[in-house]
């Protein structure tokens, strides 16, 4: 297996190990002492009434959907940013430097087109009033 992916795998390994360690160790070491009052939700010292899982107004889901859309947009920028130098070089790179004179704006232009499409969506949402809160 090519060694280029080793750092990423190491990263995932450490993350998983860390999570398991924290949760696993604490469940092993601590001595649980549950009491009925300790298990009730804390609401400023008063026994709560009704439950928190109420049916919310639809405008909250609207905002959540919009956030996901424009968040994914930034996720797509990451691979583009990694290869930006190769993209904006007309000829293949020589020891990762672009030979003189043929720097092109293909990389930038590509991302601007992507952004423009999403801005059209954003303007549509704005004019439709989905961002208007009350």
């Amino acid at each position, binding site marked *: 297996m090519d060694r280029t992916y080793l750092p990423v795998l190491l990263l995932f390994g450490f993350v998983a190990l860390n999570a398991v360690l924290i949760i696993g160790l604490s469940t092993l070491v601590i*001595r649980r*002492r549950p*009491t009925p*009052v*300790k298990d*009730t939700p*804390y609401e400023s*010292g*008063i*026994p709560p009434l009704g439950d928190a899982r109420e049916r919310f107004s639809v405008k909250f889901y609207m905002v959540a959907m919009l956030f996901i859309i424009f968040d994914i947009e930034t996720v797509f920028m990451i691979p583009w940013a990694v290869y930006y130098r190769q993209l904006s070089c007309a000829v293949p790179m020589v020891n990762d430097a672009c030979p003189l004179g043929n720097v092109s704006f293909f990389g930038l232009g590509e991302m601007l087109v992507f952004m423009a499409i999403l801005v059209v969506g954003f303007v549509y949402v704005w004019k439709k009033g989905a961002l208007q809160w009350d």
Partner: protein
Amino acid sequence: MGLAPRPDATSVSFDPPSQEGWITTRLDMLVNWGRAGSLWPMPFGTACCAIEFMASAASRFDLARFGMERMSFSPRQADVLICAGRVPFKLAPVIRRIYQQMPQPKWVISMGACASSGGMFDNYAVVQGIDTIIPVDVYVPGCPPRPEGLMYGIMMLQEKVKRERMSDTTLRDEMEPDPSSNLYIRPSLIDEISEPFGNSVHQTRSGL
């Protein structure tokens, strides 16, 4: 903890060879040093002592020196419940519920005369000392206690935390109030310690 003298150990005797090995006491020291150095206070501030508590948390009498500047207003992340101010009967169930919702290990500092003994409020509305409701570790006298007084109380609590032994399992058990009266200590004991003492009795003649 609490008023009833603990049944077994009258005084904490500590001679390592007989009871515990060198390693466990070092582990105890490490854990207690960590706990004592970063006690997260839950400021149960009701009245004038809360203002003095804010003054001790401000920049001149800095509580951050004791690792206590992170005020946790939810009992779930709190180590010390600092009851700063008088507690009326209407607030008694609130402070007891908050104490019960704090995870172990937990301690209580009763800041000020009103929290410790009802103070000057010897009337129908005020709990005569929160130790009748929840077990208290350190009482800080004063009305309101100066920030230095509160810090001396905090240092005493840190000493107490450092002397704890993990092997002593009874220390950290959740105490259950008895279901009939919902109190931790016997009602007769509450009456006994809530009695007015000294010459405060004859001041209650209205008129004259």
